[in-house]
C-alpha cells in the first residue's frame, strides 16, 4: 500500500512537471527564451533566440541579443570549436543586418576582421567576392 502511495505521488508530480515543460516546445521563441532563463550564459541558445527574433521581424531585438552573445561566447567555458562557430554565426548575422540596412556602422570593420580570421572561406564562396580593403561585393 505504501509503495502504491509513493508511485501515485510520483505520477502526480511527474504529470505536473511534464505539463509545465511542454509549452516551452511551442516554437523557437518559447524554446530558446526558456533555455536562457536557466542558462543565461549559454551562447547557442542566445544565437538561436536572435535568429528566431529576426525571423519574426524583430530585428533590433535580434541585434541586441547577438551582440550580447558575442560577449558571452568570448567568456564562456566551452569547446573552442563551438565557440568559434557561435562567434562566426553571430558576426555574419550582424554583418548581414548592417548590409541590409545599407548604412555604414562603426562596428563593421571589427566584425568583418573577426569573421575573416575565423573563416575566410565564407568570403570566398560563390557569389561573394572579398577584397583586401574589406569591401564585400555581392553579385
Amino acid at each position, binding site marked *: 500500500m505504501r*509503495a502504491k502511495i509513493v*508511485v501515485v505521488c*510520483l*505520477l502526480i508530480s*511527474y*504529470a505536473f*512537471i*511534464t*505539463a509545465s*515543460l*511542454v*509549452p*516551452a*516546445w*511551442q*516554437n*523557437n521563441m518559447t*524554446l*530558446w527564451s*526558456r*533555455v536562457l532563463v*536557466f*542558462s*543565461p550564459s*549559454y551562447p*547557442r*541558445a542566445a544565437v*538561436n533566440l536572435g535568429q528566431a527574433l529576426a525571423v519574426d521581424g524583430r530585428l533590433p531585438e535580434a541585434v541586441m541579443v547577438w551582440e550580447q552573445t558575442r560577449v558571452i561566447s568570448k567568456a564562456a567555458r566551452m*569547446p*573552442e*570549436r563551438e565557440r568559434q562557430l557561435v562567434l562566426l554565426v553571430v558576426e555574419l548575422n550582424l554583418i548581414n543586418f548592417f548590409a541590409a540596412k545599407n548604412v555604414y556602422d562603426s562596428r563593421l570593420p571589427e566584425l568583418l576582421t573577426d569573421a575573416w580570421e575565423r573563416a575566410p572561406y565564407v568570403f570566398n564562396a560563390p557569389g561573394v567576392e572579398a577584397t583586401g580593403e574589406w569591401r564585400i561585393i555581392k553579385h
Partner: protein
Amino acid sequence: MADYQALAPRARAWLWAGVLLVIAAGCYRSLLTATFIYEDIHWYPWDRPWTWDLASVRPPMFAAWGLAFLGWSTPIGHHVWNFVLHVTVALLVWRVGLCLWLREGPATAAAALFLLHPLAVPSVGYAIAQTEIMVALGGLAIAWTLLAGHWTWHRGALGGILLTLTLMVKASALGVLAVPILVASVRHEERRDLWHALRASDQTQRSIIAAVFYLLGIGVWLVRYGDTLGWLPQQYPWRQWPEEMLIQSVIVWQLAAQSILPIGIAFQRDWTWVPLTAQAVLALALIGTGAWAVAVRRHYPVAMFGILWSLTLIGVRLVVPVVPSGTPRAPEWIYAQQWYPALPGMIWCMVDAGRRILEPRAIVMPQTGQEQI
C-alpha cells in the same frame, strides 16, 4: 468504490490504462498548436529527395515519417505521431517489466512513470527526436522478443531483424547492441527473473561483458571530459562517429547529479554547478571502485559492477528516450530524470561490492582440505 472492487482485474487494468492515457494526453495537449522548431525542418527530407544520400537511408525512420505524412503533413501530424510512439514505448516498458519482474505491480508502475515522465517531453515535443523514440522502441522490442519465452531460433532471428532495423535508425543506436549481449548472457531458462538470472549466469560471460563496458566507461570519461576541459586536441582522430556512440554511454555520468536540477528549477535556481562537480566526483568514484575491484577481487565484484553498470546504460538508453545530442544543454530538459532508474543500480553495485569484501570468506587449507573462516 464498491463498483471499482467489483471490476475484474483485466477491466481494472484497462481503466487505469485509460486514466493514464487521458492524463498523458492532457499533459501534451499544447503540442497541437506547436510549430517545427530548431533542426526539425532540416531533418525531414521528404520534400527534398535530392538531399538523400546513403547516410540518410534509414528505413525505420522513413516508415515512421511516411506514416506521419500520410495522415498529416503538418507539425501536428508529427507531434501526434510522436505521442503515439511514446505510448507504444510505454506499453513495451510494461511488457519487458513483466518479463523481468514476473509481477504486474512493478511493471505497471514502471510503465506509468515512463509515460508521464518529464524527460520524455523533448522526445515527443521535438519532431526529429522521433529517432530517439524509435531507438527506444527497437531496443525494448528486442528485449521483449528475447525475454518473453523459451529460446527458439525463430525468436533469435526476429531479435536479429529488430536489431538490424534499430541500428538503421541512427548511428548512435549502437548502444542497443548491449541488449542482446546482456539478455543472452543472463538468460536462464528456469528462472527468468533478471535478478536470479544474473546470479545464475556464467562467470566468464559476465567478466567479458564487465570488462568491455568498464573499459568503455573509462574511455568515454576521458574522451568526453578531456574534450570539455580542453585536455585533448580539438581534431583528434576519433572525433566523429565513435564519439556519437560514446556519448550514449557517458550520459550515465552526467545524469547522476543532474537529478537535483528539477528541484532547482522548482525554486527558480540555476544549480548547474552541482551536477558539473558531482558528476566528475561520481565518475572518479565509480572508476576507482571498479579498478579496486579488478585489482583486489579479480572476479565477482568487477563482473557485477560491469553488468550493473551496463544495465544502467540500458536503463538510460532504452527506458527513457534520450534527448538528442544536438539539443542545447538546458538544465530543464537535459537528461535529468534519466538518472533515476540508473542510480539504485549504481548504489547497489557499490554496496554489494563492499559487503562481499567485508564478509568472512571460507579458505580451504591445502594441508587438511578443510574449510576455515
